[in-house]
């Protein structure tokens, strides 16, 4: 036991004597979490602080064009800039100066009205209420609202804009049909025969705890994901630490001492786990105290702290296990550092830190199930967003612990085999 404490104390000394390394270890995760949360915060806000300037070319000058413009302006997402012609708008968008240009075709309002009237008259005639004058029926060409997107625009933004405009146009068409029927049936335009408001609506039901809805925000999503990412980055300094021991000869000396490799790794585990926990505390503190000052939502940790620490400890252990294994196998820092950093990024991608697992291809979803970062992230989300208890996170933290045990055992066995005497 004394040897374990002595090993841990030595690791502590090595860490605190490298001031630059210590700063990187604790400050960089905070910079990461602040940067990511600020960037992603707007995507979580229903009313954004920033509006996206878009171009509109109104060739219609009618009610439909006006309704589209009003709808976009009222969304508070877009700042409408009217341009005179399609060529100018297209060039501006394709050169990347604007994200989007909407070209409303000529006679859209009048042709829509004509088309709807024609259809309604046809229906009414079918019922025998009026005679259909077939000579009046003309062919009205289909109308097309053109959308120009900056080629660099993300697919998700495109889809969201397309859906929004599609919904708006459908509503305009429906209302035009109602109006046309009203005109045919009643002579009094003020008489409300049809309820034009949508009959079906949808409402998101949020989880309720203590009579209060739990509404996720960017902070509740980002802090767990990026905290986990930062915790796993412990792989890099830890593996470098082990490789350094080999290159500076201290590892050879330790091999001649009556101390087991497990004890040496145990000392490293204790100290690096403390580092993970301190990182975690600092990141929580940023979420709770600094984010509100920066105008970001406050991280709500009320009643969750014990479980959050539990997840952080087991995630830290999983990361440490991987670091011990990598450090044991790698021969040089040039092997361990780039591999460690890249591997963490891969694990993060697989774990769903960037892209949610449910939208990944099936094969990647299966792979995601074996990523310790996925287990950690799920456990954090369980606590932060799903408000679950210890029993629900038990499978995930068990997997994280198992991962630590397996990776550490492989490291010990590998070392024994390699240095077997």
């Amino acid at each position: 036991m004394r040897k374990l404490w002595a090993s841990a104390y030595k690791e502590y000394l090595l860490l605190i004597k490298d001031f630059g390394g210590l700063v990187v270890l604790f400050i960089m995760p905070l910079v990461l979490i602040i940067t990511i949360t600020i960037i992603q915060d707007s995507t979580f806000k229903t009313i954004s602080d920033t509006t996206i300037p878009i171009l509109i070319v109104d060739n219609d000058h009618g009610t439909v064009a006006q309704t589209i413009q009003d709808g976009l302006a009222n969304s508070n997402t877009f700042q409408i800039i009217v341009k005179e012609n399609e060529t100018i708008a297209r060039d501006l968008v394709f050169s990347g100066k604007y994200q989007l240009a909407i070209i409303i075709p000529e006679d859209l309002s009048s042709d829509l009205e004509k088309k709807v009237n024609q259809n309604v008259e046809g229906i009414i005639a079918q019922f025998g209420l009026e005679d259909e004058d077939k000579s009046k029926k003309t062919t009205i060409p289909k109308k097309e609202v053109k959308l120009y997107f900056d080629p660099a625009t993300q697919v998700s933004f495109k889809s969201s804009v397309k859906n929004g405009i599609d919904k708006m146009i459908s509503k305009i068409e429906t209302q035009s049909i109602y109006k046309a029927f009203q005109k045919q049936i009643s002579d009094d335009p003020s008489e409300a025969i049809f309820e034009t408001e949508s009959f079906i609506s949808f409402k998101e039901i949020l989880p309720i705890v203590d009579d209060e809805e739990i509404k996720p925000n960017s902070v509740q999503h980002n802090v767990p994901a990026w905290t986990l990412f930062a915790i796993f980055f412990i792989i890099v300094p830890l593996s470098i630490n082990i490789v350094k021991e080999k290159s500076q000869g201290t590892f050879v000396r330790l091999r001649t001492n009556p101390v087991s490799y497990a004890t040496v790794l145990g000392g490293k585990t204790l100290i690096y786990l403390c580092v993970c926990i301190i990182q975690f505390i600092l990141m929580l503190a940023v979420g709770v105290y600094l984010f509100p000052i920066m105008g970001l939502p406050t991280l709500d940790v009320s009643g969750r702290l014990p479980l959050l620490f539990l997840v952080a400890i087991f995630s830290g252990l999983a990361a440490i296990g991987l670091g011990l294994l990598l450090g044991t196998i790698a021969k040089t820092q040039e092997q361990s550092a780039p591999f460690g950093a890249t591997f963490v990024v891969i694990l993060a991608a697989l774990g769903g830190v960037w892209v949610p697992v449910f939208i990944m291809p099936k094969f990647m979803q299966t792979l995601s199930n074996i990523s310790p970062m996925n287990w950690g992230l799920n456990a954090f989300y369980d606590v932060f967003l799903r408000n679950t208890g210890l029993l629900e996170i038990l499978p995930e933290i068990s997997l994280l612990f198992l991962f630590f045990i397996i990776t550490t055992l492989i490291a010990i066995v590998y070392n024994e085999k390699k240095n077997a005497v």
Partner: protein
Amino acid sequence: MIQIDKISKKYKTADVFSVSNLDLNISENEIFGLLGPNGAGKTTLISILCSLVKPTSGTFSINGLNYQQNKNELKQLIGIVPQEYALYPTLTAFENLKYFGSMYGLHGKTLKNRINQYLEILGLSQFANKKIDTFSGGMKRRINLIASILHEPKVLFLDEPTVGVDVQSKNVIIEFLQNLNKKGTTIIYTSHHLNEAETFCTRVAIIDHGKLITKGKPADLISNHEGAHNLEDVFLRLTGKALRDHA
């Protein structure tokens, strides 16, 4: 004390044996020099005796303890001063020594007193709280030595302990080792400094190409080789003048 029976070692990537069928007995309280040109197999033999390298064949025992059956007892019995500075450069001399001492099960006042005692003897007391990376080569060599003897081993292996140090440091190290030997420590040492070996060692063995060429007291070896005035003459006569570059 040390019984080596037909030890051989061939590394996986090597074409030839680094140590070949070597028999050697080293008695208690000897200062035994392992001499040989570069690549002769000295470091490999010491590494085998320190349980760092597994022999391909053969066996050895130290103080009656077999390396395969009594690994931990054997580690407690021996001390190794490696050729490279096996120290943490960012830790102080005291912190390094405290850590390595504690790996031998030493702690508390015993450990602290031993560290201070050896630092004093080797003239490093005033540098106890200085970081190793600020030390000169000679100072590092001395700390490297202290880190290996804190547990007061019965057998001390030294792989070129005076390489790259000034005369003053070398003299302090040699004198210190002689005192250790007087107190009962058996010393096995490798060196390229043949003059040093001639005066320091009670017995030497010259090995080349992994094989034992000769062994005996330095004075006997010199007198047995006609025309030889010192150990270097004997060494060159037995190992030749050709360069021993290898990669």
